[in-house]
């Protein structure tokens, strides 16, 4: 993607400013006008001084052309603000590199075929929502027969032996089960992110795996609304999936990773 190009559908005319990926700024109603909307509450009653405080905060955020368009009183001692402004900040989009799950998307049928041909047995996947977290809809969306938004769940893949242990499963229990069942991959769901408990939980799982010398024994995957691949890697896992993930994304990744490790092992021999 070169750095400057006309926005979609724009007639080629000098007055139409191109998208500048090196200085990417919000688009309000014109290219690079930097306009954004902000809302917050202050613990003081509405007043001209309080409005000025809101404007001052907007300045500190790097806005100019600031409009405090609403100052309301939710209750005694509080004031609610809606503001608009144009931000000076810009981002060099060309320099942004985001760690991405390395996986070649394959369909339900391709995956089952490849496993049959190149693996010769079912790949065993165990999953659970760990710690205190009782949310199961996320992990079920990945595991259950019905899957998610018409995309079949792992239980439906003939190439996979997928076991969903449900919610509030302790890290130790999940690891012990994986060892006992000689699983190939461990899938963890974390939904509640209160005081970063989801991060602590994942890091604790990996610490346990290290202690038991099992780090490379399993493919460690996590997912949840507040998770993504960079965060997962930071916590020491192999891959991470965020909101909107489809089971086939996970099925493709686990297969690719399994085959990578298989090939790597063969080379070492």
């Amino acid at each position, binding site marked *: 993607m070169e750095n400057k190009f006309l926005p979609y*559908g724009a007639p080629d005319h000098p007055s*139409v400013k191109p998208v500048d990926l090196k200085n990417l700024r919000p688009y*309000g*109603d014109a290219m690079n006008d930097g306009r954004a909307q902000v809302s917050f509450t202050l613990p003081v009653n509405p007043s001209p001084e309080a409005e000025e405080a809101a404007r001052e905060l907007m300045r500190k955020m790097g806005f100019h052309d600031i409009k405090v368009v609403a100052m*309301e009183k939710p209750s005694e001692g509080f004031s609610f603000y809606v503001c*608009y402004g144009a931000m000076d900040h810009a981002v060099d989009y060309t320099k942004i590199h985001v760690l991405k799950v390395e996986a070649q998307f394959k369909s339900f049928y391709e995956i089952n075929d490849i496993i049959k041909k190149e693996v010769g047995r079912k790949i065993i996947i165990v999953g659970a929502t760990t710690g205190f977290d009782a949310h199961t809809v996320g992990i079920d969306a990945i595991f259950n027969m019905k899957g998610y938004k018409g995309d079949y769940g792992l239980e439906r893949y003939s190439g996979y032996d997928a076991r969903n242990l449900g919610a509030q499963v302790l890290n130790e229990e999940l690891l012990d089960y994986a060892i006992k069942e000689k699983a190939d991959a461990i899938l963890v769901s974390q939904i509640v992110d209160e005081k970063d408990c989801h991060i602590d939980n994942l890091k604790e799982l990996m610490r346990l795996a290290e202690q038991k010398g099992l780090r490379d024994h399993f493919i460690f995957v996590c997912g949840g609304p507040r998770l993504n691949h960079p965060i997962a890697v930071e916590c020491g896992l192999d891959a991470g999936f965020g909101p909107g993930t489809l089971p086939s994304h996970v099925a493709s990744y686990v297969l690719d990773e399994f085959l990578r490790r298989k090939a790597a092992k063969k080379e070492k021999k």
Partner: protein
Amino acid sequence: MKLALDRKKIAACRKIAVKVSRDVRKMIDAHSTVAQERSCVRLMGIDGAYLNPKIKQYYPLANVIVDQLQEDDALSRGVSYWMANACLEKNMTPTQVAEELVNSNGTFRLAKLPQHKSADVEKKAKALAKEGLARLVARRKERNKLIKGLHDPQDRSFKKPPVKYVIVASGNIFEDVVQARSAAQAGADVIAVIRSTAQSLLDYMPHGATTEGFGGTYATQENFRIMRKALDEESTKLGRYIRLTNYSSGLCMPEIATVAAQERLDFLLCDSLYGILFRDINMMRTLIDQHFSRLVCALSEIYINTGEDNYLTTADAVENGHQVLSSQFINERFALDANMKEEFMGLGHAMEMNPFHPDVILLEIARAQMTRDIFPKAPLKYMPPTRHMEGDIFFSHVYDAIFNLVSVLTNQGIHLLGMPTEAIHTPLLGDRFMALKSTNYIFGGAEHLGEELIYKKNGKIEKWAQKVLDDSLKLLKYIDKVGLFAAIERKCFAEVSRKIDGGKGYKGVFKRSDGYLNPFLDQLERKDYGK
């Protein structure tokens, strides 16, 4: 009809509207205006302009021609006579005549040319008119062919939800194209490019593509062409016909209508009452102009939109629903007199009552359903709340959501999307996205709600609708008594008073002389013309 409204009272309202329009029509048939004559010049294919050093702007040839005739006191015979005569005399096309005239720096005077036999001049003028109007019919057919190959979101039976109409107003037509295509992809069916502020007071049409505007983008022929072309591309991509709207009310109403027809626009804000009340345009000038404009729209199957919604921004919206209804009856009659079918009348109304008025949602439903029942075939342009919208965009977004629900519940035809930032700025691209997503959800979720719900006999809703109809009949009777012009002077609409000889553009009105010739008008008046 879903509400038990007295059909006799509705008929009585319509009868008065016929009388009111007949008086006004007498005035219209006895006069013409500089704008109407300029429209005929444009219909002759003269769409050029020259860089006028005085105003450092492009000044249309149509204005040069009509100004000259006015200077030579010859305009009362109609520009068609002088142009046809000049074509015969110089054996030129109208465009060649115009070019020679503008380059003659004032020496080549149409009214000074030798005059051919009036029969020949009339024959020539008729030919020019036939050719000019035929081009409009061709564009109409072109549109209908394009629509046939695509999904048309406009449902004549109003069983489907109304078409979604959004505005763009960046000031730069090329930027407007980017935002218009974005809005179409997010679900908009109708794009309106808001005119730059105060263009309605210019007595000439700005020329060419414009990249600088004020609270909107200039309405020019080139801008119409650029946007219509871009929307044709997007329509084909989306498989859904996207309509284009612009604003004609003001001193150039008939010209903007003509140019809109030539460039195949689909909707046109075209309401002299709006011009009178909100732009202080002279009553006679804009009522004469409106007749010609609506004839052009009828021929070109352009939907007109009228501006009654604005009455409720200056007058109290709870008390004055009847002003809107009375004005709609009059606007309906004016449009019928211009050969326009009800299917093309986007009569304006709005949801503008104070949101914290008790049971306000019942009253808004009552008025919206009443309007649908009284004008069953008209698409009706239902406008979002503006006056009580707040800087608190979260509240405003909910207020618009209720407007969306009332609109689909009462089977409106044209739905102008409310923006959460109505009280703040002309919409950002993100504002439109939010508004379209909310409307898509509510229209999809309540598509058949209208068929499912029946109003309680003599309930609050039915009684409120009956009250508004009664008040309208009373107001129409008063207007019938004093005449439309006096009624406007006495603040019958929008708490605004205007005088018959006041306002802008009065100087552009003239009485038709006996030999007045306007074959464009004559052919447009023929009911069967261009069918």
